[in-house]
């Protein structure tokens, strides 16, 4: 804790020997946290796969009722937001404050776009009575290459239960991500980050990418794989 050390890097915490050690620790910590997130979603993916195998027709019928356009646009929105995150990290590396803030703000806006579209999608589910509960009503059939197959509405309800829990948990993570990136944007604007110290941007970016990747798995599992018409 020498004086010039302090002056050099105000972000260095007292219990680390040097900035590199601190950065490595933060990065490893973030990766471990991502592992816990994968395990967290893993439980739901496991439940989804088991029930999809057990009630294939109902799950396919439910899947065919999802709005593939909104889901597709949202996928595109998230992929673009991941690009802006990468650009933000690059800008931070180069120490470009305004550019960094700009990319962070765009990322937040894209995240919010995703949430708004998701909101419309949920609204559509309410209108079609596809929300599990007492008002649930599912009369649609499974269109198996033109052949119409009746399905048990209870089993379809299970599909929508999982749909809402999985996309709901994902949306919650998006909300947290938007809050996180808004905070980072404010800090970036205030000049908190330098070319020597931008670990929070990097780690925030890792979180954002993970939430994206989870969606990249959710989208085909929920929307696409039963659509072989």
């Amino acid at each position, binding site marked *: 804790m020498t004086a010039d050390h302090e002056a050099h890097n105000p972000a260095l*915490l*007292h*219990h*680390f*020997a040097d900035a590199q*050690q601190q950065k*490595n*620790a933060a990065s*490893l*910590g973030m990766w*471990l*946290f991502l*592992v*816990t*997130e994968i*395990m*967290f*979603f*893993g*439980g*739901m993916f*496991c*439940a989804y796969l*088991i*029930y999809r195998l*057990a*009630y294939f027709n*109902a799950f396919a019928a439910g899947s065919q009722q999802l709005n593939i356009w909104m889901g597709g646009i949202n996928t595109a929105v998230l992929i673009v937001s991941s690009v802006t995150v990468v650009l933000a990290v690059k800008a931070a590396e180069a120490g470009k404050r305004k550019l960094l803030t700009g990319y962070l703000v765009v990322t937040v806006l894209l995240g919010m776009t995703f949430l708004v579209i998701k909101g419309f999608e949920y609204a559509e589910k309410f209108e079609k009575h596809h929300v*599990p*509960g*007492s008002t649930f009503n599912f009369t649609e059939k499974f269109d198996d290459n033109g052949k119409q197959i009746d399905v*048990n509405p*209870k*089993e379809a*309800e*299970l599909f929508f*239960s*999982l749909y*809402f*829990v999985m996309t709901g*948990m994902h949306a919650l993570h998006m909300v947290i991500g938007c809050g996180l990136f808004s905070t980072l944007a404010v800090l970036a604007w205030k000049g908190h980050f330098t070319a020597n110290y931008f670990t929070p941007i990097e780690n925030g970016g890792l979180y954002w990418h993970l939430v994206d990747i989870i969606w990249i798995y959710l989208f085909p599992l929920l929307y696409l794989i039963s659509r072989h018409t």
Partner: protein
Amino acid sequence: MAIKAATPVIPANQVPKLNYLTNGYTLKSWLLTTDHKRIAILYLISVSAFFFLGGFFAMLIRLELLTPEGDLMQADTYNKVFTMHGIVMVFFFLIPVVPAILGNFVLPLMVGAKDLAFPRINLLSWYLYIAAGVLFLHCMLSGGVDTGWTFYTPYSTAASNTNVIEAGLAIFIAGFSSIFTGLNFIVTVHRMRAPGLTWSRLPLFIWSTYATSLVMILGTPVIAITMVLVVAERLLHLGIFDPNLGGDPVLFQHLFWFYSHPAVYIMILPSMGVISEIVPCFARKRVFGYKFVALSSVAIAVFGFLVWAHHLFVAGISLYAALIFSFLSFVVAVPSAIKVFNWTATLYKGSITYATPMLYAFGFIGLFTIGGLTGIMLATIGVDVHVTDTYFVIAHFHYVMVGGVLMGYLGGLHFWWPKITGRMYPEGWAKLSALFVFVGFNLTFFPQFILGYLGMPRRYWQYPPEFQVLNVLSTAGASILAVGYLLPMIYLLWSLRYGPLAGDNPWGAAGLEWKTASPPPTFNFDETPVVTWEAYNYDEIPEPKELEAPVAR
């Protein structure tokens, strides 16, 4: 004037050094501390409170079972009492006890670091624990839960009108406390080790805490999402575990035990680490087969994830799945047995001192062996079908959880007490209470093996009169056990003021934590230590004077 002149002037070299306890006395300096040692003390106080709460419920259970009739309480009350005993003891005591108290205190010291990698996240862990605890206390005071600590559906969904949601959320939050602790430990072990402290020189407590942390971060998120699904099922009437809606209650059991079986290793592994510290110290020998003991911790963590369905042998899983899980459960016994063999081999030709920590270590080895071997019996499908949901299971896991974890914890608490407080505990009282714990424990739980084998089911408030003798023995044992737990509480508090000063290394123990002052300064070491020796180099360390056998000179 005269008074002023009489003030003693302390020479500079005699001014007591500032340590972590004397570095600030305000409440704020404790509640907003990021010092791992102070956080360990915060955990010590709060976890002990939960231990005595859980113990209170245990006493209610034993009192009810003193007589065959349901006379102390009604069936519904009894359901709530054993549920809350289980939840408090598992989620608020056994999971955090060794990692969050002893691990928090000694892990950074053992690796020669100034603190854990993320001190503020460490404090957050404690606050999450407290938040979960307060939520659960509120749940308890507003009527409690009656689902059993396992929250099996449909007990916890369609069949219960108690406050399951609150209890589920409490466990969800407590889970994040444990995730953050595990994350902190792993990063600290990877990134904060002192120069020269290679992986093969790490104390075995670090290895076992590291393995524990792996289980914590991989398993806990699964119980978190399982609790979310149960809460969603109750709140929003989703049917994920409800057969009426196409759901499958067995899926709940799979998800629950995917965490909760590895959670057993979250509890026992750190205690095994404590024993690996105590045994070499009081046998004055390097631990036998260091690498095997170290890697067996990791092996237990890995195999521990592959055995969960042995809780489901009677739940309707396929025969082939049962066979595989039975086999894997046998496999996980191998690394556990390696540890027991190696501790025993360490004792061979050792110069053994029967100090209190060593007594607890002996207790651990014996009781854990019984608990482990009965676990093998339960992993055998034929026996398991016979004794599922009987007191045999209860006795088995209490031998591991209480006989194992708690013995390890008490051993470790006594072992590191001089380091934590700078004072020695009274040895005579401590030995007496260790004896009470050992005798009381066996008297409480050994009869339960017999009861279970004779067919007494768990979770009933009444039983046929022929089981009474064994139940009375068990309750009598529980009261002795209670004395054994209350005594340390009293004499350890007493020792804070009246205990003799311990000095830096009263046991003559190896390990970096003994190379700093007792109690340690806030940043642990005045200068970063450089390690040039192997772990447990007891052949190079002189025995402490007090522990030498009296010889004529």
